[in-house]
C-alpha cells in the first residue's frame, strides 16, 4: 500500500465517531459569523446593525486577491458588527445575526441542480469565488485562487484529500460515505477546469475501507482512481499526500503546481459541487464533535457562526473532567480560549479533552535520541531548530530549513524529553516573518 517516504508517526486513531451519521444541527438562537475565516485579508462587512438579511446573502466581501466572501448562514436581523473570539486564538471582526426562524434563502440561491457541463470555465471559477469557498481542511486558502495556477504551470494530477490523518476527526470520512456522489461530481468539476486531461485520484487512508469502496464504485466509470494509503500521520498534509499518491516530491520552496499537482479537500469538493450546480454559498460544514470529555460524540452539519456554546449544549454537555477544548484535530488544532468562538469554514472538529497528561509533561533536556529526526516528514532536525529558536539566532535557523517545516507536530509527539519542539519552531517562524515585514516596510 502506498504512503509517503520520509518520516511519519502513528498516533492512536481514536475515530470514535466514524459510525455516527451526520446530524443537521438546528439554527441556534444567535449566530456569530466571523469575517476572518480564510487565509489573507479579512472580508469587508457589507451590512450594518439592524439590517435584514436572507440565508445565503453576501454580508462580507472579499478584500483583495487572497480573501474570500462571507455569507449569512440563516435569515434574520443583524444584531451587531463587532470583534468576537475566534477559534484561532485571537479576536476577529464578526457579524452577529439574530435568526428570524424562517431560515429563508435569498432568491436564486440553493436552486435545483443544474448541469455544470453547460458552464464555461470562467463561470465555474466565478461561482466558486462568489460562494466564498476556501480550503476546508484547515488552511482556508481561497479555492478560486488555487484553481487558477499561473500560466505555464501544467496540472496533470488532481488529488482529492481523503486521508483525514488527524486522530478523532471523521468529518471527511462521513462526507465520503454520505455524499459520495457530490464528492465525485466536485472532483469532475475541478477536472473540467483542466480540460479533463489531468489524472484524477482520491487518496484515502486504509482505516476507512467503507469510504474506499463507496468512492471506488462510483469513480470507476468516470476514470477516477481511488488510492488506498497506509494509515500514517501526516498523510493529509499536501506535500505528503502528493508524495504518497504520485511519488513526486515537492522540494523546499516549491508549490504543488510546480510538480503538476493540485490537491483539494473532500469538504471543499462537495462545497464546489454545491456552489457550481446549486448556487449555494459556503455557509455550513461538517464538524466532528468528539474527545473523551463530551457525553454525545457526533458528526454535525453546523452553520458557519454557530458558537461552541451551542455545540456543547447540543451534544449533551461536557463531563466534569473537561478542561480543554480544541478546534481542529489534536495534532495541529488550537486550544480554544472562549466558548463564544464560532464555527468557521475551516473548523473540522471540536474536541473536548482533559489536559492533565499534557500538564504533567515538563520539558527536559534533549537526550539526543534522534526520534524527531526520524519522524520529521520534511527531513529536518527539529531538535536543532528548537535549540536555535531558543537562542533566538534567526539567521542561522533560516539556513537550517525553518521555512520547510509544515508544523505537523510529529516531533513533539515522539519527543521522550517532552520538549515543545514544534512550538519553538512556530515561534521562530512568527518572529522571522515579522522581521521580514519590518525590512520590506
Amino acid at each position: 500500500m502506498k504512503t509517503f517516504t520520509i518520516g511519519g508517526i502513528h498516533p492512536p486513531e481514536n475515530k470514535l465517531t466514524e459510525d455516527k451519521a451526520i446530524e443537521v444541527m438546528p439554527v441556534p438562537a444567535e449566530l456569530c459569523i466571523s469575517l476572518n475565516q480564510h487565509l489573507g485579508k479579512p472580508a469587508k462587512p457589507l451590512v450594518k446593525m439592524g439590517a435584514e438579511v436572507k440565508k445565503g446573502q453576501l454580508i462580507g466581501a472579499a478584500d483583495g486577491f487572497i480573501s474570500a466572501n462571507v455569507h449569512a448562514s440563516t435569515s434574520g436581523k443583524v444584531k451587531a458588527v463587532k470583534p468576537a473570539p475566534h477559534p484561532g486564538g485571537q479576536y476577529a471582526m464578526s457579524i452577529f445575526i439574530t435568526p428570524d426562524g424562517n431560515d429563508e434563502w435569498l432568491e436564486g440561491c440553493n436552486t435545483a441542480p443544474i448541469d455544470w457541463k453547460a458552464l464555461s470555465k470562467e463561470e465555474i471559477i466565478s461561482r466558486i469565488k462568489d460562494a466564498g469557498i476556501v480550503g476546508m481542511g484547515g488552511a482556508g486558502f481561497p479555492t478560486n485562487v488555487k484553481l487558477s495556477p499561473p500560466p505555464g504551470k501544467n496540472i496533470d494530477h488532481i488529488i482529492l484529500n481523503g486521508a483525514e490523518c488527524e486522530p478523532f476527526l471523521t468529518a471527511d470520512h462521513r462526507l465520503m460515505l454520505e455524499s459520495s456522489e457530490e464528492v465525485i461530481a466536485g472532483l469532475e468539476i475541478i477536472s473540467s477546469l483542466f480540460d479533463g486531461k489531468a489524472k484524477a485520484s482520491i487518496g484515502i487512508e486504509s482505516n476507512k475501507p467503507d469510504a474506499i469502496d463507496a468512492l471506488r464504485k462510483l469513480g470507476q466509470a468516470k476514470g477516477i482512481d481511488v488510492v488506498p494509503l497506509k494509515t500514517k500521520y501526516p498523510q493529509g498534509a499536501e506535500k505528503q499526500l502528493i508524495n504518497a499518491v504520485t511519488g513526486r516530491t515537492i522540494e523546499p520552496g516549491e508549490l504543488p503546481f510546480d510538480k503538476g499537482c493540485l490537491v483539494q479537500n473532500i469538504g471543499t469538493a462537495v462545497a464546489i459541487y454545491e456552489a457550481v450546480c446549486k448556487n449555494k454559498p459556503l455557509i455550513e460544514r461538517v464538524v466532528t464533535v468528539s474527545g473523551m470529555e463530551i457525553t454525545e460524540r457526533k458528526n454535525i452539519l453546523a452553520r458557519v457562526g454557530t458558537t461552541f456554546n451551542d455545540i456543547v449544549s447540543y451534544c449533551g454537555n461536557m463531563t466534569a473532567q473537561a478542561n480543554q477544548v480544541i478546534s481542529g484535530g489534536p495534532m495541529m488544532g488550537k486550544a480554544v480560549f472562549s466558548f463564544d468562538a464560532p464555527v468557521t469554514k475551516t473548523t473540522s472538529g471540536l474536541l473536548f479533552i482533559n489536559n492533565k497528561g499534557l500538564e504533567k509533561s515538563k520539558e527536559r533536556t534533549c537526550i539526543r535520541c534522534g526520534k524527531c529526526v526520524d519522524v520529521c516528514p520534511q527531513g529536518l532536525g527539529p531538535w536543532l531548530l528548537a535549540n536555535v529558536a531558543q537562542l533566538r539566532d534567526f539567521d542561522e535557523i533560516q539556513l537550517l530549513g525553518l521555512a520547510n517545516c509544515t508544523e505537523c507536530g510529529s516531533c513533539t509527539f515522539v519527543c521522550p524529553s517532552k520538549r515543545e519542539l514544534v512550538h519553538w519552531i512556530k515561534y521562530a517562524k512568527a518572529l522571522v516573518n515579522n522581521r521580514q515585514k519590518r525590512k520590506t516596510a
Partner: protein
Amino acid sequence: MDSVNLKISYAPFVRSKDSVESVMYNVALALAPATAMSVYLFGMPALIVNLVCIVSCIAFEWMMDAIRKKESNCLDGSALVTGLLLALNVPSNLPVWMLVVGSFVAIAAGKHVFGGLGHNVFNPALVARVFLLISFPAAMTSWPIPFSVDMETAASPLGIIKTDGLAALGDFTLMGGLFGTMNGSLGETSTIALLLGAAWLFYKRYITITIPLTMIGSVFIFTGIFYLLDPGTYASPLFHMVTGGLMLGAFFMATDMVTSPLSVRGQIIFGLGCGLLTAIIRLWGGYPEGVSFAILIMNGFVPLLDRWDLTDRKALNQKKAETK
C-alpha cells in the same frame, strides 16, 4: 459552562508515552540478562558490585543536582543505567571503595561537569572504567574465575594473548565465550546475555543497527585480515567477537544516544572508528582490551561529525535559496 476554566496549551494535544524514564528503564531492562548472568557466574560478589554501583551512582546524581541547585531527576533511570554499565565493566572482586570512587567519577566528571544528562560528551560509565583502569591497574585486571568459590583470579583471554602469546590460551572455546564461562569483568563474559538485551533495544527501536554493525564488522574484518596473514600469532576474528567488552561496548555503550552521532553517515564513521581503534589496541596496544578507549576517543569526534552534517545541510539550503 463559564465555570469551566479553559486551559490553553500548545499543539499537539496528544503525546507518545515515551519519556526519558521509559527510555532509561528499558535500557536497564535490556541490561538485566547480562547482570543476572554476572551474578550467576560470579556469585555474591557480583551482586554486591551491582548494588554498590547502582546505589552510589543514584546518590551522587542526587548530590550533584543539589550542588548545582537543579531539580533532581536522580530516579529518572539514567543514573541507574550508568551504575549498571559501570558494574558490568569491572571485575567482581573490586573493593567497594573503588566502586564508590568510580561511581563518583562517572556521575560528576563524566556527566555533571558538562551540564548533566544530555550534555555529556563522553559515556559516563566508560569515563569511570578508564579512570579506574589507569588508577588501579592491578585491581582492574585480575579477573575472578567463574564459579570459583575462593575468588581465585586469573588474566582474561585477551590479557593472556597480550602477555604470553596465542599459544598460552590453552583450552579456550568459543562456546565458553558465548555463554560467559571465562575470566573477565561482569558484563564482558556472556555474549548471549548481551545479545538478548540488545534484541530488546532493537525491538523497542531505542537503538539502530548502524553503529553495532559497523563497529563489530570492522573488528571482525581487521582482525580477520591479520589472522589470515599469520594464524600462529593472531587470534581468529571469532575469538575477538566473544571476548572482551566488544558486545557490551557495541550494543550498549557506543549506541548511547547522548554520546553518538545523529546522522547515519556520522554513525557509520563513528562505528568504523570504534572498531578499528579497538582492533588496533587489541593487536598492538599496551592494554589487552581497547573497546573503552576506542569508544571514548570516538565520543570526542561526535560533535565534529554532527557539525559536518550541519554545515552540509546549511550549504544545501543556501544553494537552493540561491537557485530560486
